[in-house]
């Protein structure tokens, strides 16, 4: 290797990383044009941190389980218990903080299973459009989507004992089909693009075409849906646990807390309002982040 060649190789690596850095900066510009998206981004980071360090942040970590102190039951918000206490005298703030982890696990867990399954199904159906494989996959998808997701999830939970894991499973079963339909739409149109035809002409394998040519082009669509879905899935989880089909007491869970709390309305309003506000906050943050990412990825050249 001559020195000259080495030098050009080095500069190309340098310029490639410069390009990558420039892309990151550009994406950040697209994302941060809307200040609300930045707020969402920061809020999501904070929520994740709270979920990780719950033990250190919550004022009364021991209140996260079956702790009782009836002398301090149903206290309204005060300087000792900022958000009041529940019917067994547990600190509402601590229980809310401890419920963040379950909500995040719910969202991430469902999407991490539903998305890959749906995406692969969608890619196959899109690639083999017009063939029997595609027809079978998409007909099954249609059947799964012929029932409102929440209803399907409720029906599936009917046959299990209620736990966080089972409610995640129920939501996942009703959720993958959305990814399949989304990716199918994208993949079947990409499949007819000239660059796929030219890849086929030079003899690229099917695996290469599906995963190296089609998938990268659907990636933005998938990513946008995944971030927007976090909020929706957490909401569904809260709905299931509200009717008693999610995590069981004494595990702290926002939906369960609301369902325990609203029976004590209008007196012990803090038992309902604060967990509800917490759900709103989590979902809102993820929605804002998701919208920001969608804006960033779909931005027109402006």
């Amino acid at each position, binding site marked *: 290797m001559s020195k000259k060649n080495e030098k050009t190789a080095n500069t190309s690596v340098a310029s490639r990383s410069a390009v990558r850095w420039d892309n990151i900066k*550009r994406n950040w*510009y*697209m994302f941060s044009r809307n200040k609300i998206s930045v707020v969402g981004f920061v809020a999501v980071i904070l929520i994740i941190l709270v979920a990780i360090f719950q033990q250190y942040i919550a004022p009364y970590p021991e209140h996260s389980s079956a702790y009782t102190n009836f002398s301090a039951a149903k206290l309204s918000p005060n300087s000792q218990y900022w958000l009041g206490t529940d019917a067994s005298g547990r600190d509402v703030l601590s229980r809310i903080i401890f419920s963040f982890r379950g909500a995040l696990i719910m969202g991430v867990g469902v999407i991490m299973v539903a998305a890959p399954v749906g995406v692969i199904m969608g890619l196959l159906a899109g690639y083999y459009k017009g063939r029997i494989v595609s027809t079978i996959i998409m007909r099954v998808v249609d059947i799964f989507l012929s029932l409102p997701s929440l209803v399907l999830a409720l029906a599936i939970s009917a046959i299990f004992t209620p736990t966080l894991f089972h409610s995640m499973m129920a939501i996942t079963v009703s959720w993958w089909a959305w990814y399949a339909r989304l990716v199918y739409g994208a993949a079947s149109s990409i499949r007819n693009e000239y660059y796929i035809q030219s890849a086929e002409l030079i003899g690229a394998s099917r695996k290469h075409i599906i995963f190296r040519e089609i998938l990268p082009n659907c990636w933005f669509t998938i990513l946008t849906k995944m971030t927007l879905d976090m909020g929706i899935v957490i909401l569904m989880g809260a709905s299931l646990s509200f009717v008693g089909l999610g995590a069981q007491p004494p595990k702290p869970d926002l939906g369960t807390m609301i369902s325990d709390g609203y029976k004590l309305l209008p007196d012990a309003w803090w038992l309902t309002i604060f967990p509800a506000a917490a759900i709103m906050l989590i979902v809102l943050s993820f929605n804002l982040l998701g919208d920001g990412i969608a804006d960033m990825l779909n931005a027109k*050249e*402006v």
Partner: protein
Amino acid sequence: MVEQKQPILRIEDLYINYKVYGGYSYVIDGLNLNVFPGEKIALVGESGCGKTTTVKSILRVLPKQAKIAGGSIVFDGHDVLNIKPNELNEVRRRKMSMIFQDPTASLNPVFTIGKQISDSIKYSGLADRKDKKAIKERAIQALNDCSMPDPERIMGNYPFQLSGGMRQRVCIAMALATASKFMIADEPTTNLDVTIQDQVLKLIRNLTDEKDMSLILITHSMGVARMMADRICVMYAGNIVENAKTEELLEKPQHPYTVGLMNSIPKLTGDSILSGIPGRLPSYLTPPPGCRFSTRCPHAFDSCFVKKPPFYDIGNGHQVACYLHDKSVPQSIKEEAVSNE
């Protein structure tokens, strides 16, 4: 002579910016243009040089990101940039029309042709708003004028049921049904087959001639410009660089960019590869401070990189924005610049 009359459209010192990633894109850069009544002008230049932006500013239909940063546009006594909405609508309805580049995109996909033509006639005041029959007659007349076969049937069709050429005729019919003085055609034939192109161009030419209307035709083809226009304005990177009568410009192009453009036209005879113009349009984010063509110009010298050249009148209504025509620049510098080629 046409030139003695007052211009019907006078654009002076127009600046238009677009807000983009990394700041502002300075697209239109002090553009001047006069159009006289009945005159047909071709605006020629490569893609992205600001032709469409210029004409859209005349009708005030620029996209939201665009800001008019300075200058004035006066059309038939109306100060278009400071006009009241009612007055603007009046201008749009009665005096001026525009034909867009893509006939598929410029017809609303979910309404019938008849509904769309009738509505523009209805609001033009050319027929009584409640007199449906009169409106319909005028619409059919307009389609007939554009030699559309069976206009009655076309009126009931949706855009997707027509061919590209038919759609463009519908657009022309809509534009001509209401406009009386001025027509803007933004590359009306780019998306059409070559054989249809000719018909559509002839149609525009004949109909505007009949009504003695002025026309601004945007095109990147010198051939189209030659066939259609009395005068050709060559645009480069947001400004007009050369402006002359059609024959004069085609025979004696003066601006280095025009010369390059002419050399890029493929000839039907000869087998040499075209010389064309090296390089590409400068970035509008940080345009060259002097002449915007200086970065690609084979003849550029010191002054070109410093200050934007003004228009030099070289007689017979021929204007060139190039220092090679500045009498105060010593001949020796110009010769050196030319011999650098």
